[in-house]
């Protein structure tokens, strides 16, 4: 059995499985980020600035990553599960960027 455990290298990961306290902390962080996003939406000068959209995208990506790592346990789980999720996610991200260059506002700007 030791072989099976070693082969997968997960016993250490199990020992570091998040506790309920960690889940609550993550929930509080997610709430703070959401409040931050909505607060930013109501500041006209910030909305008009060039940092608004990048800031929202970064905050959204942070929330996404936190949920995936801690609530979906991908940080602690087998690398195959990580690959099954991040592989299609990367393809999907490349697809949306490609489509925006082809048909979206990015394409319009390039054409202009």
């Amino acid at each position, binding site marked *: *059995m*030791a072989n*099976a*455990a070693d*082969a*997968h290298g*997960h*016993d250490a*990961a*199990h020992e570091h*499985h998040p*506790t*309920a306290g960690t*889940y*609550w902390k*993550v*929930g509080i962080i*997610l*709430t703070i980020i*959401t409040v931050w*996003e*909505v607060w*930013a*939406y109501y500041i006209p000068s910030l*909305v008009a600035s060039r940092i608004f*959209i990048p800031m*929202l*995208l970064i*905050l*959204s990506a942070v*929330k*996404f990553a936190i*949920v*995936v790592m*801690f*609530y*979906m*346990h991908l940080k*602690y*789980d*087998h690398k*195959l*599960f990580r690959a*099954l*999720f991040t*592989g*299609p*996610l990367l*393809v*999907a*991200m490349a*697809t*949306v960027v490609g*489509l*925006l260059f082809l*048909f*979206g*506002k990015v394409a319009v700007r390039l054409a202009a």
Partner: protein
Amino acid sequence: MTTATLTADHGHTHGAGGAATPEHQPHHTTLGLDHRKIAIWAFIGSECMLFISLISTYLIYKGKSLVGPYPHEKWTDPNTGETFNAILNIPVTSASTFVLLMSSLAMVLAHNAVINRTGKAKWWLLTTILLGTGFLGFQAYEFTSFVHEGLTIKTNLFGSSFFTLTGFHGAHVTVGVLWLCTLLAIDLKRGLKPEDGLIVDLSALYWHFVDVVWIAIFTLVYLIP
């Protein structure tokens, strides 16, 4: 299970020593991973592709509607002179976003309660179901108010792509709520044990995925003008 134990939360084998190898477990692959967990991750990966196609469609059509109502700007119908306000209701959607985030917290606490035998699993599952149903209620309110304000799936490109994207997401939430109801029924009937951790984990992974999809939708559709 003296030779190997299916871990409640990760779906692969480890145990107190013995001759059993992972491939001898009924639900295990030769990697020692439970095939059901591999399947749910593969399914979630494919769902990424589905939702990114819907989000891409929304982004490509964004700002290309010929007639209103529009998501973030007022619009006056040149034929009737009727003015339509910006259609998105950010306070309501912010509240529904918070509700869905908290449902993810409740779900992970339900899973934690099952694998640690705290006896609170049914309460956290019930909380998750109620929060998920609350989110669906917010969405029903939003859709209804949009239709009353003149935006349907046939009105313009924004309406078509918006209702398709958020409608698909709402359908996924509905499936998730039904799935959680079955877990709650099992818990009420015989009690969920640590050995059942994997079936709770599978539903939790689906539920959290629905949550992360909404995180992306909330930013891309609602907050970015």
